[in-house]
């Protein structure tokens, strides 16, 4: 924790670390909340299944009135079964598109966090070596300075690679999320149209049947 909050020497990296800490946490929470939604959709689908089955078990042919009531229960059972399929489809859409996208985003942010942490550790090592070199006795100073140069070289390489990776990541993560958002919207739109049509057909059939 102390290393993670160590002040950076470069404003670019300090800002990036601050943003990353914030977004990594938020994208993880968003992913978890979406998974909660999916789980509840699945539980609701299960409840619809139970209700549909219970309606199906109401079939009774004791007399004409019981037969009429049974037919009504069977019709409602069909409707509830359609609601169940609707919920299952919506849950599956959520999971396979936006759920996947948010999970990927969360993992990307965690990977960036680890990369920045490794750089921060190298920065701390460099600062420790610099302090050691300043305090070194004359006979050891040359060795310490050589070591300091080596650590500085490593740190500069890490920073250069990290900067390139971060810029590439900023471009690609926008595209990745964009594609997942479009995919999510399209499948949910198609599902809504499909079930609007199905429910309308059920409604039309019921109105015709019950007006006779």
């Amino acid at each position, binding site marked *: 924790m102390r290393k993670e909050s160590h002040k950076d020497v470069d404003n670019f990296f300090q800002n990036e670390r601050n943003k990353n800490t914030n977004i990594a946490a938020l994208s993880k929470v968003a992913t978890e909340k979406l998974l909660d939604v999916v789980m509840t959709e699945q539980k609701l689908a299960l*409840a619809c299944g139970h209700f549909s089955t219970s309606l199906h078990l109401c079939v009774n042919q004791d007399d004409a009135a019981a037969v*009429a009531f049974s037919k009504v229960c069977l019709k409602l059972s069909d409707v509830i079964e359609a609601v169940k399929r609707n919920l299952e489809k919506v849950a599956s859409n959520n999971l396979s598109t936006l759920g996947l996208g948010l999970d990927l985003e969360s993992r990307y942010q965690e990977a960036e966090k680890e990369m920045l942490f490794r750089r921060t550790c190298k920065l701390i090592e460099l600062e420790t070596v610099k302090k050691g070199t300043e305090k070194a006795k004359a006979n050891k100073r040359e060795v310490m300075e050589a070591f300091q140069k080596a650590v500085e070289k490593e740190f500069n390489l890490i920073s250069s690679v990290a900067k390139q990776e971060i810029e590439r990541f900023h471009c690609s993560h926008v595209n990745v999320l*964009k594609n997942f958002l479009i995919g999510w*919207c399209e499948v949910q739109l198609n599902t809504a149209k499909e079930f609007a049509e199905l429910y309308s057909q059920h409604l039309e059939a019921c109105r015709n049947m019950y007006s006779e």
Partner: protein
Amino acid sequence: EKQQQFENLDVQLRKLHASVESLVFNRKELSVNTASFAKSAAMLGNSEDHTALSRALSQLAEVEEKIDQLHQDQACADFYLISELLGDYVRLITAGVFDQRMKTWAKCQDAQVMLQRKREAEAKLQHANKPDKLQQAKDEIRERVFALAVKPNAGFSDLRVFFSSQKDRVKDFRVVIIKYLESLVHTQQQLIKYWEAFLPEAKAIS
């Protein structure tokens, strides 16, 4: 036989009622979780630097808030159309059967006690050698014995009235199915509007 039919119907309706209560509960939980996800999406949108992506995520949050409202409306439809109807029938049967049974049982008990007293009075009159009053007592005992045989069946006359209103029950359920389907169609049409409005926002991310 009618009593058995009644009890079967009672069991069926209770199972249905329990199932639909579970449905209502889960729908409300879905609404809560959808609202929670909407908030988290809004916070993610606010933290995003890329302007178009930030706007799309904020729009996503708004869509989810609207979907939450649809879930709440659908939960109301589940409850007020189906759950309450089934609950009313369960309460009706419970009140009718239980109340009628209690009354009938109490009447039977009273009749038994009265019959016993009359038999005791008849025995006393036999010893007292009063033929007129003895005959009157025998006639009364015969009437009471006959009434005890009929009363338990007559006590269920109110339940026969319930059975004769089964046509109303079928009509109630038909109306409910149509209204429920109308609510489902409305929900899907609203969802289509929301997704069609969101799609250009997602495509506008560059």
